[in-house]
């Protein structure tokens, strides 16, 4: 196993899939000659040239649509948004076109496309560049939504996303690109979409975390262990389809649930998980489900306010103690 950053794991996945399938190409702003705004596509243009690695004008709606049309006509585009915040300009293509095409055409035109890029906050990039959009996209039938939190997951899930015949929303996290982890060397290494991963086993409380909050939850679990609290951390990895069975099994074991998420709380993925756990494991809960989410305000610039707005290890620890009545 190699030790790779999430950035390089994603790069490897792209490279291997470009080699594996001649219909795979990556398109987006600064993905080619500039080597990627966050260097996820570093070296790919030099290796594969203009056909497979395509710089676009700053025209999110337009190049998202080119991806949708190309996918309908048999290619497998990977469309990079420099950040998911910019995908909002392209959301008509993602929601009204990509998500509905297979259904609307009576199963004739599938749209095998991956939309990917960094989601959520970075360091003080303020209101318009700090949004976590998973709940928005997860609301629409026809889309799969994926959020890796480790280098191995990033690589294995991106390869599966590219091979999937549906539009996949692949949400990375800018502050996590440099995080390192073990990644299997096997070029056929993939992780199926729709399977959660128990990142740490425990018996007193379950934390469901995704992307940005997974390292925080693991850190919180370490701290809580010192105080004698055994925490299980479940990472769904794929938001849609959601592996609710793994989450419910964990809750049935621990009887307590904290959900940590970078998005806003209202109508969030955490709200959905909370509802589904109530549906499937109501009698197993020893305390109300607790959520840690982003504050109900646009993201402020000032560092102290930004920290205050976001989930943190401390907030997660406090939430676990609350549901454990400690």
């Amino acid at each position, binding site marked *: 196993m190699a030790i790779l950053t999430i950035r390089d794991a994603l790069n490897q996945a792209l490279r291997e899939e470009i080699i594996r399938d001649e219909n795979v*190409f990556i398109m987006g702003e600064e993905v080619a000659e500039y080597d990627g705004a966050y260097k996820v596509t570093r070296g790919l243009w030099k290796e594969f040239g203009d*056909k497979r690695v395509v710089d*676009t*004008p700053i*025209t999110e*709606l*337009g*190049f*998202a*649509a*080119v*991806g*949708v*049309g*190309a*996918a*309908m*006509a*048999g*290619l497998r585009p990977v469309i990079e948004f420099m950040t998911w915040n910019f995908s909002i300009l392209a959301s*008509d*293509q993602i929601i*009204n*076109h990509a998500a509905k*095409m*297979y*259904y*609307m*055409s*009576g*199963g*004739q*035109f*599938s*749209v*095998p496309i991956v939309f990917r890029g960094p989601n959520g906050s970075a360091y003080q990039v303020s209101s318009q560049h700090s949004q976590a959009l998973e709940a928005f996209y997860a609301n629409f*039938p*026809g889309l*799969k939504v994926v959020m890796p939190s480790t280098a191995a997951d990033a690589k294995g899930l991106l390869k599966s996303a590219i091979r999937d*015949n*549906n539009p996949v929303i692949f949400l990375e996290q800018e502050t996590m690109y440099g995080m390192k982890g073990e990644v299997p060397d096997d070029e056929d290494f993939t992780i199926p979409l729709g399977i959660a991963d128990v990142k740490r086993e425990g018996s007193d409380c379950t934390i469901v975390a995704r992307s940005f909050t997974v390292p925080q939850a693991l850190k919180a679990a370490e701290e809580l262990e010192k105080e004698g609290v055994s925490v299980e951390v479940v990472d769904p990895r794929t938001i849609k389809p959601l592996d609710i069975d793994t989450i419910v099994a964990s809750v049935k074991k621990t009887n307590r649930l904290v959900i940590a998420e970078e998005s806003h709380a209202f109508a969030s993925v955490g709200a959905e998980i909370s509802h589904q756990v109530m549906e499937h494991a109501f009698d197993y809960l020893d305390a109300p489900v607790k959520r840690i989410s982003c504050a109900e305000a646009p993201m402020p610039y000032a560092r102290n306010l930004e920290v205050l707005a976001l989930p943190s290890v401390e907030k997660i620890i406090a939430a676990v103690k609350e549901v454990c009545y400690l």
Partner: protein
Amino acid sequence: MAKTATQAGTSKTNANGHRAKNSAAAKTVEKMEKSEKAVTDTVNPKIAKSEHQDRKKLQKSSIKNLDKELLQEMLYQMVLGRSFEQKCAEVYRIGKIGGFCHLYIGQEAVGVGAIMALRADDYVITAYRDHVQAMLKGITPEAVMAELYGKSGGSVGGKGGSMHMFSKEKGFFGGHGIVGGQIGVGTGMAYAQKYKGGDQVTLCFFGEAALNQGMFHESLNMAQLWKLPVIYICENNQYGMGTSQARAMSMSSISEKAAGYGMASEFVDGMDVLAVREATTRAIERARKDGSPTLLEIRCYRFMGHSMSDPGKYRTGDEIKKNQERDPIFLFKESLKEAKVFGDEDFTEIETRAKEVVAKAVKFAEESPFPDEKELFTDVLA
């Protein structure tokens, strides 16, 4: 003759697209049907005759260059398209068709002139006024009508309705309901054609109102930048729903907008099916040979309302009548007669044949079962 289809649809009370259910609306429909019956004939020679003298010369030259069979087929397809849409209006009024329903009456020369200039392996994508274009690309009238009925025998099994006809087999990439959305998708289809090599092209249809969407500009920029084999066909019927082009577009010369992207363009008379065919053929050749795009502004006029629920208060009867004088079917028919390709009896035969095909389509749609309830959840994911 199909019975009454008015340029106005039902009533003011249902301008939001829902069909009239109350008696006031029904009365309005009746009144409009009486006053505007003339629109409904496949071609009304009395109206259409006057300006014909100006047009026939232009058509005469190209008639010589085309096979008689092709010319006859083009006329047949125009007549079939109109008969089909007239029948749609008729069955819509008795509640057989739900939702939105946008008819192509008056614009037949655009679809026939352009799509019949393609090869079978080329692609077409269009907006929501898609019934006739779908048939021209090879979807059967039965499948289109059954789709309008929301039946399992429809082109997409009853999941799409009027605005969403599709056929992967025939290269018809859909009718689309978001104004301008399909311009970018069509650009992507041409991107794939270029990526794969070969010399296929994409025809991408949209109305003039779609030019006011950002997608139009984003798409033309990329298509010219990357030299994509796409022909953008702006069907300028002069109204975006109830808003005239003059009230919505700061610079009205659409073909000139292509200059902003360094793209080839042409203005075409959309009432002249041969002019449409010639301009489209030139654009197709450019796309096949150099892989470069073209913008065609094809000026036409819809004789009906925007949709079946359009009260039609935004244009005058005189304006509609003036445009009907240049009915594309009449102009073409007269030119073919003049060139001795065609006689009146041939036209009668064509009309009869078209009506039979439409009747067969209606019968198929009536008899086709509604989709099974399990279909609600099929085709959500591939």
